[in-house]
Each structure stands twice: as structure tokens, then as C-alpha cells.
């Protein structure tokens, strides 16, 4: 970054470069406004930050807004300013990569940083990636990440979408009715708001005729969906994705995560009203969908980085998975135990239960079962609908 070395060099060229950098950050989910761009320019033009490492530290503080930004920033900064072109978005683990690597090595290097952040790197034409797993397998987990991009747009069948939304809306209504009733009981401990009461008493000459009361606000039930999008689930992913889209649309508070060998936070992408665009965005985020499964590790990522934020005491966690895990079952069990301590209910919907003679014999499933409140079949929208009374009781 020699251009940053001298103050007089901060001219049009660096402005353009900085604008490009800010755009890259925005593409990666950073919230950067105009005021921040202006301040970034001030930082670059200040003599104190002439050396690149200092400029990096300063820009990181200015442009990052959350921990995930903070962890991803160094890699993005290096990628942008040290010459590597930034073109295609590829979901990788957040570990900082400084050398030129093929997409393949980037994508298979999992287990380092847990957040599973999308980082922009150049798509290297030399990498000859082939999907190591045939599509549409029904059983068994695979250790490999699939690099093929699933075209989620074909899921945007309007009829199916409408059905899924109708179901989610029905569920949301049922769960809310239950909540309101609970809330009334909690209102016994209400107290008088002195400030408002006295304000209201001004009209009656200082005699407090109207008592203004306060009551505890109720927290609506929050639903957090963890959707297994691995190869073994590929037959059902479409159904569940529509359902999850509906859930995000209908519940006041809902979050969705997709996992296979990594965990990806997909709420923002799926919240897009326009279904086609939502699925398009999801397609970008979910590179590797249809590959292997590491449930335990994905749950660990969730517990470590997302749980404090998205789970409160009135949260129901819904895991949609067949329980085929390539990781050690002890890991899954301990993470399930940790999750159990945090949230109110865990629902595990397993598409395989629908099969004749199914026993939850997969090691992972058996390990997770003690921590699950409701273990139920779900492979089609109809079977999800059949769950309505159970879910409403949670």
C-alpha cells in the first residue's frame, strides 16, 4: 500500500480505492454509511496512520460493528489492499488467508474460525472442483463439503410457497394465543407509574384521579430454526426451506441458521419479501449445501457465537435434521446439553421417522435424544401440519 505512505498522496486515486474497499465491506454484510467513508478518508489522510498496519487497526475500529466483522476484517483488508482481486463471494471459514489459495483449499479448511463467514476471494480457474458426493442421497453423512451451488430458485414455486406460509402463519397464531394467556397471570405484580400519574393529575388540580400503571412487558416466543442442509437431507431441504421462510415471515421473532459442515446465519437473506430474491441471496450464502454433516461442530459454533444473541428464556429451538453426523457423538451430546441449558424447548424434527421400522439408531441421533423435548417426524408439509397441536402446546 505505498499510496498510503505519504500524506499528499491521498488524492482521487485513494478515494476511488477506498470507495471500492467500502463497497467490498458492504457486500460482506458490514454496515458502513457515508459518514464512515468520510471518516475513513480522514484517517488515511492523517499523518499518524501513514503506515499500513496502523491504518488497518484504525479502519478496523471504524468500519467494524460487530464481532463477526472484526474477525473477518483482516482477511478482507489484506485481500483488497495487497493486490488480490475481489470478485466472487465464496463462503469459507473466517480464518485469515494471506497467500493465494484455490477455492478448494479455502472451502475445505474448516474448523479454524467458527463463524463461517463469507469472504470474498478470487475464484481460481485452475481449481477443478467436482462434487464429491452424488446428489440426492438419502442416508449416511459425508465428511466432505460440496462445492456445487444448489439453485434455490427452483424452490420458489408459488403454490408450495403459499402453502408453507399458510402453515407457518397458523403455527404462529396458535403459539401466540397461548402466550397472551400466560401474560395475564404475570400482570398481578403491576406498580404505579408515579411520573405519569402526577402528569395526568395536572388536569385535576393535583389530585391523582387517574392512576397510570406499569406492567411487565411480555416477550413473544422466539423460534430459532437450525436447518440441516447436508447431502443426506437433500430430498427434504426444499420443503423445509419454504417452511423456514414462512416461519421468518410470520413469527414476530425468529432466526434461521443453515448448517452442513459449517453454520451459516440466513435470517437476513430469507427475510427478503420477494421469494425469488431471497432464495437467490441464500444461494450465494449457502455454498457447500448438499455436502457432509458436522452437527456437533455446527451446534458448537451456534452455542459459542450466536446463542447469547438469539436465545432468550422464551426461545424454542427447532432442529430439522436426520441426525447423521460425521463428528463424534460425545461432541454432539455435550453441545446439546449446553443448548438445553439456555433455551426453553428443543424440538427435533427428523424426516426419517416417517419411514417404516425407523429407530433413532444413528449414533449422533441417539446421543442428542436425551436433550430433546419433542422428537417428531417431518418430511412433507402435511406432516409438519400434523405437528401443529404439539407445537402449539410448547
Amino acid at each position: 500500500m505505498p499510496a498510503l505512505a505519504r500524506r499528499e498522496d491521498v488524492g482521487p486515486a485513494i478515494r476511488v480505492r477506498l470507495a471500492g474497499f467500502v463497497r467490498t465491506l458492504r457486500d460482506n454484510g458490514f454496515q458502513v454509511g457515508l459518514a464512515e467513508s468520510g471518516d475513513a478518508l480522514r484517517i488515511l489522510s492523517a499523518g499518524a496512520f501513514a503506515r499500513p498496519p496502523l491504518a488497518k487497526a484504525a479502519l478496523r475500529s471504524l468500519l467494524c460493528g460487530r464481532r463477526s466483522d472484526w474477525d473477518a476484517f483482516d482477511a478482507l483488508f489484506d485481500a483488497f489492499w495487497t493486490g488480490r482481486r475481489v470478485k466472487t463471494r465464496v463462503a469459507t471459514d473466517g480464518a485469515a488467508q494471506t497467500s493465494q489459495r484455490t477455492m478448494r483449499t479455502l472451502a475445505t479448511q474448516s474448523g479454524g474460525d467458527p463463524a463461517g463467514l463469507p469472504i470474498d476471494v478470487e475464484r481460481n480457474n485452475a481449481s477443478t472442483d467436482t462434487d464429491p458426493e452424488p446428489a440426492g442421497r438419502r442416508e449416511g453423512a459425508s465428511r466432505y463439503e460440496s462445492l456445487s451451488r444448489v439453485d434455490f430458485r427452483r424452490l420458489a414455486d408459488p403454490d408450495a410457497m403459499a402453502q408453507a406460509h399458510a402453515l407457518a402463519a397458523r403455527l404462529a397464531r396458535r403459539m401466540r394465543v397461548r402466550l397472551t394467556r400466560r401474560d395475564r397471570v404475570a400482570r398481578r405484580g403491576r406498580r404505579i407509574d408515579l411520573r405519569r400519574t402526577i402528569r395526568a393529575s395536572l388536569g385535576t388540580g393535583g389530585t391523582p384521579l387517574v392512576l397510570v400503571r406499569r406492567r411487565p412487558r411480555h416477550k413473544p416466543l422466539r423460534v430459532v430454526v437450525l436447518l440441516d442442509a447436508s447431502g443426506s437431507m437433500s430430498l427434504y431441504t426444499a420443503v423445509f426451506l419454504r417452511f423456514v421462510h414462512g416461519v421468518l415471515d410470520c413469527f414476530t421473532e425468529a432466526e434461521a441458521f443453515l448448517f452442513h459442515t459449517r453454520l451459516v446465519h440466513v435470517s437476513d437473506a430469507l427475510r427478503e419479501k420477494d421469494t425469488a430474491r431471497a432464495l437467490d441471496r441464500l444461494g450465494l450464502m449457502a455454498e457447500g449445501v448438499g455436502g457432509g454433516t458436522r452437527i456437533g461442530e455446527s451446534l458448537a459454533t451456534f452455542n459459542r457465537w450466536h446463542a447469547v444473541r438469539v436465545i432468550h428464556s422464551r426461545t424454542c429451538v427447532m432442529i430439522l435434521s436426520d441426525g447423521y453426523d460425521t463428528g463424534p457423538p460425545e461432541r454432539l451430546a455435550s453441545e446439546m446439553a449446553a443448548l438445553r441449558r439456555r433455551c426453553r424447548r428443543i424440538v427435533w424434527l427428523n424426516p426419517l421417522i416417517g419411514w417404516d421400522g425407523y429407530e433413532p439408531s444413528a449414533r449422533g441421533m441417539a446421543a442428542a435424544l436425551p436433550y430433546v423435548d419433542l422428537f417428531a417426524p417431518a418430511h412433507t408439509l402435511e406432516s409438519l401440519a400434523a405437528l401443529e397441536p404439539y407445537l402449539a402446546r410448547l
Partner: protein
Amino acid sequence: MLDRQAIADRLAGVGYVADAALATVLMLMDMLQRPLLLEGPAGVGKTEVAKALAAIHEARLIRLQCHEGLDRANSLYEWNYQRQLLAIKAREGRDADDTEAHVFSEQYLLERPLLAAIRQTVPPVLLIDEIDRADEEFEAFLLEVLSDFQVSIPELGTVTATAIPRVVLTSNGTRELSDALRRRCLYHALDFPEPDREARILLMRIPGIDAALAMQIARLMQEVRKQELSNVPGVAETLDWAAALVGLGVSRIDADRAVVHETLACVLKTREDHARISREVTDRLIGKVA
């Protein structure tokens, strides 16, 4: 405006060992006049940053501890209703306008942290602690105060800041903060200090501690934090523990393992953690660092 090195030196002078990134961001605070958002697990010293910042600028530290249900009345200002009612009773029969002007005067105004922070003559450090515990509505209100630094009190008029405070917000990440607030603030993620820095903290804070012992303690704490505890001990616990060891006359942690194990139990705050760090585990960890 102080430069990075000067800030780092002064922080060291008041007993806070900062790394380069933190010194940089503290310098940016002054340069860009933005609030600083500190995020990190409990016990990494987020609040200490604000205290040290106040100390190096010789400014007053005004602290607003956030909690659920925090509102304008608790954070900005409130009228002293009880006294107002008394005054109204006492002045019964006098001119009503006069009474009103009297009870809505400065005398009956209870200053809360946010109002206090903008009415100082010397810029204070305003610490808004655990902002994630406050409600979203409060966050929006705070954003407004932080961008305008003026407050309108209907009965008194608009109060404009006489000094722009240095604002430090801390968050444990129990709730997602709004994008607007995050964008407005400078961001710094604080983590547990690496052993080298923690040892320097011990040397600075514990009088009479041996440098070798400080390093051993810092490295052992790093191992302890790796043990997947339900309640990870913070820097304050390290300080307590080091003080305990020094007080008991321990000079090397591998010399007196029984005492180390017993005192190490002081930094573990739950039953499960106690069970997890058994005598054998302690011995193994000591073996690793000694």
C-alpha cells in the same frame, strides 16, 4: 490531541496495560469524536478501559449502568416529585404562576447520568455500561442524545452540551444491538489478555509480586480458560488469585501445589467448574506451565 504512544504510556501510568490496537482506537475517539463500543466476554476489563481513560484525561467518570426497563427518567432527568408536592402545599394560596415557576426550577431537577455528562465544564468520560441490557427503545433514544448532545426539557427549555463527553459503551453481547448504533460507534473487540500482557497487569497491580511468578500465573490462567468452564475467570479473578498467592507467601506455583489448587478454587465460581478442575487437572496444568 495525544498520539498513540502517548496514550499507551499514560494508560500504563494509571495502571492499565493496553495493546496497540486499543491505544489506536482511543486516539481515534478524540480525532473523530465518535463514541467507542467495546465488546467482549465478562471480565476482560471493558469497564476498566473507561476508568483508565478518565484517569489519563483527569476527567470525571460518569457511569450509566443499563438494565431492562431503563428509561428517560432514570437516565436523563426527573423532577423531584415529592419535594414539588411539598412545595406546592407549602405555597398554597400564593400566586399560581409563581408557584409553577418555582417548582419547575433547577432546584427540583434531579440530574441523571446523561444530563450530568453534558453539563460539565470539563469533558467527562461517560461510561454506558452493558448497553445490551437496555431495551431497544432506549437504544434509539441514546442514539439521539449521542448525536446531538442536547436535551430538551419541556418545562426548562433546551440544554445544550457545555462539553462533549468521551463516550464509552460496553456490551456483553446478550442482545443484538441496532445497526445504527453500531455504525455510529467505533468498535473494539476486547479479549482475554495474552499471558504476556496479563503478567504485566499483575506486575503493575500487585505490589511485591515476583516477575517469574506473575508469568507463571498468567500462563496457568490461560490454560484454565481453555478448560471449557461454564464461568470463565476474568482478569479481576486473576488479580485476586495472585494477591492470595502473594499473601500466602507462594513464590513458585510448582513448589506448593496443594496451596495452588486450593486457592485456584477461588477463581472458579460454579460447582461444575470446581468438579472439572480437580486436583489432577491442576497438577497437569501446573506441569504444562512450570
